[in-house]
């Protein structure tokens, strides 16, 4: 079973705990997963995706995450930066906070925001998995392209000769 399971893990599948039992029985899990690896590698779970989308569907909220990636900031700072009212910014931060992307802490009268423990880790991990696949594909494509270039050079020389 080692092969199937390690392939499954290598591919960064989202099967989680189900992976080992799935590998043992070569269940549709792997088949499905491989299917999706190939088919645009959309191996998010629905929940994971919904969470990201709900929070990230808004340009301001994406901007806030980007900003917090650089440095922690208070809600007042963020409101100023994004030309918003305090109330408006509080709402956005609330959505991000509930999705686990941002945490806030009140010290005195100032509420400071920073990237949450979940941060964009899952998002990033998924993008990275997808990138891995395309990197592998393109590395092989490089070889094909090199061959075609060589062939063209040889053919070109032949024509000249």
């Amino acid at each position: 079973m080692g092969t199937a399971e390690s392939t499954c893990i290598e591919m960064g599948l989202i099967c989680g705990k189900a992976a080992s039992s799935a590998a043992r029985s070569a269940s549709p899990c792997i088949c499905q997963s491989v299917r999706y690896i190939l088919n645009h590698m959309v191996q998010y779970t629905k929940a994971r995706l919904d969470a990201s989308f709900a929070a990230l569907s808004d340009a301001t909220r994406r901007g806030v995450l980007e900003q917090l990636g650089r440095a922690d900031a208070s809600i007042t700072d963020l409101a100023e930066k994004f030309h918003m009212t305090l109330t408006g910014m509080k709402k956005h931060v609330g959505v991000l906070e509930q999705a686990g992307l941002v945490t806030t802490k009140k010290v005195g009268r100032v509420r400071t925001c920073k990237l949450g423990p979940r941060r964009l880790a899952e998002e990033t991990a998924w993008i990275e998995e997808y990138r891995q696949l395309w990197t592998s594909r393109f590395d092989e494509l490089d070889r094909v392209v090199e061959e075609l270039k060589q062939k063209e050079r040889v053919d070109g020389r032949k024509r000249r000769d």
Partner: protein
Amino acid sequence: MGAKGEIDPTSGKNRTTVERKSERELVVTRRFNAPARIVFEAWTKPELLKRWWAPKSFGVSFLSCEADVRTGGTYRFVFRHAASEQPMEFFGRYIEVTPHSRLVWTNDEGGEGGAVTTVTFEERGGETLVVMHDLYPSKEALDAAIASGSTCGFSETFEQLDELLVTLSTSVGRS
């Protein structure tokens, strides 16, 4: 996200970048050290496509690779994976084929909700920047594709996330 076409310092190869542009789109970029006509050829001749589209490191291989690469033409790829008895099929139609610069195809194996893939080839100084863009018809289509791809069940984390989402959608609904 790094600059398009930068070199990966660890491998010395051209870097592949992936960016999610929106809830409906994904964009992949990569530079190739060859003119566009050569890169284009490798994407449009089935016997060449076959050599790179199913990378060995992913444990998949082609059972068959048919591609009639011209506007209105169709493709059908059949893969095999060591862990699965059932072959996997991918098929669709080429909507646009503009030699050396642009390819557009549909991904029909998933029914209505499939993405439309656009690949552009931009040549500059003997190099080619490939930009691949997957556009899903709607957020729901992408969600559905994803949901059907995750039949393995959720890990604890995701279950917790589900609970969070319920809270989230209720509170958003209220405001």
